[in-house]
């Protein structure tokens, strides 16, 4: 009898201590930190941007392939048709390096999203609830003298949940700023190099190569029309001329996709730097504005590549 009273007293003390601990920890650990929220938003937009960046290279490879085919078809009588003559624009080893870099950027963005997102907190909540339910079930066992009421079990679960959340937030607050700072330079370098790869339609890079390929495609199509104008019916001639219009539109859309990719990459580097610099600040209004522009760029980019042009 006396031991039961002592057990109940101990349980009551345990319950009240748990509720106090839960309240304190809730105040500091339950709500994701501003850094975690900012990092999560950045990571989502960065993942979307990097997912589309590889398509920039695919777009130009495709037009280069089409231009080579058009050339081979036009010169069939003189040179025959040998598929072995078709080569990629970028050699395999150079392409692989770029794919690895873009996949690395994607992994970085996805891991940032995972580390700063809410899923880990939800997992802690689920585990803590499960522990509370298990404790209550155990307490109901006849072989256990000490009894927990459902309120005590809930309070214990809340305390453990709050402790878990506080631990996670503490790790994030300590480690994320260090990672962001260390990655500032590599991210800036990678975005600048890929942007250089994309280049300018008049001077260098993928955009210039795209333009040259479309000049070739348009030229071959005009040659076909000129060489066969006496043989084409008016309807056939109109259809062939329409191909010219489609090619011109395709070039315009493809170049826009490449230009927007460059812009999105520049914004990615800018926003990442801003994130690293404001890591320990509670409010960062300048970052918020940059982040909104970046998120808009990422969305625009996705819709551009989702409606990428067809070619004849």
């Amino acid at each position, binding site marked *: 009898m006396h031991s039961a009273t002592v057990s109940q007293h101990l349980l009551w003390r345990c319950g009240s201590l748990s509720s106090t601990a839960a309240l304190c920890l809730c105040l500091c650990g339950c709500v994701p930190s501003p850094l975690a929220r900012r990092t999560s938003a950045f990571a989502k937009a960065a993942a979307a941007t990097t997912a589309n960046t590889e398509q920039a290279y695919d777009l130009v490879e495709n037009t280069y392939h089409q231009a080579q085919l058009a050339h081979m078809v036009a010169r069939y009588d003189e040179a025959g048709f040998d598929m072995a003559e078709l080569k990629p624009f970028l050699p395999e080893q150079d392409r692989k*390096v770029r794919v690895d*870099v873009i996949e690395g950027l994607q992994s970085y963005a996805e*891991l940032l999203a995972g580390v700063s997102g809410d899923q880990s907190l939800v997992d*802690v909540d689920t585990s803590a609830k499960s522990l509370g339910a298990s404790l209550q079930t*155990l307490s109901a066992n006849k072989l256990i003298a000490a009894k927990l009421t459902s309120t005590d079990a809930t309070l214990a679960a809340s305390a453990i949940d709050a402790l878990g959340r506080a631990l*996670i937030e503490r790790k994030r607050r300590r480690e994320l700023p260090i990672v962001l700072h260390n*990655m500032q*330079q590599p991210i800036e370098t990678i975005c600048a190099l890929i942007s250089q790869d994309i280049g300018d339609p008049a001077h*260098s890079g993928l955009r210039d190569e795209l333009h040259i390929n479309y000049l*070739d495609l348009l030229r071959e199509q005009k040659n076909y029309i000129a060489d066969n104008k006496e043989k084409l019916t008016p309807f056939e001639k109109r259809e062939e001329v329409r191909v010219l219009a489609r090619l011109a539109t395709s070039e315009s859309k493809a170049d826009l996709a490449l230009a927007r990719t460059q812009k999105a990459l520049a914004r990615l580097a800018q926003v990442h730097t801003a994130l690293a610099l404001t890591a320990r600040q509670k409010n960062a209004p300048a970052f918020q504005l940059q982040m909104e522009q970046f998120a808009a760029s990422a969305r625009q980019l996705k819709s551009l590549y989702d409606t990428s042009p067809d070619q004849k």
Partner: protein
Amino acid sequence: MSRKKKTGNAIVSGQPWTPPSSGPAIKASEVVVSKPMASNIRSTDPHAIWQQAHDALQAALELGTHSLDQTKDKQQRDLLNTLLDALSAELTALNQEDMESHTISLQAASQQLDTGVADLKSLRQEIDQVSSAIANAAKVVTAVDEVLSGIQAFLATFPVL
């Protein structure tokens, strides 16, 4: 930049290209696309040299393509097409060379990125361990309850003496 004129060459260093319909007839054997004009450019910066060569060839390609639209004679069109094919191939080669020159820098940046990814993976594991620890505690409590329930059921099979 010094400008040298080579008679009979379709591409002349530093001189604007003259379309065949308004200049002297050019024979196919005289068509030579000269290499990028490094020897004619005073800049010693390799990239500047590359860019000047590229820009000159691209200007020739654009002009030649425009002229092709106005050329009706089949023979002249064929000649012009041969020229434009060569210009296009040369420009593609220059673009490929330029992009390959970025590859080493990209490789180095990729290795630095791998370090950051590894740090984040480690942080992710530490965070996951927090919820795992709580989940394991719940499993232990459930297991204890099952054991005690088993003992209780076993004891219930013995009659009270």
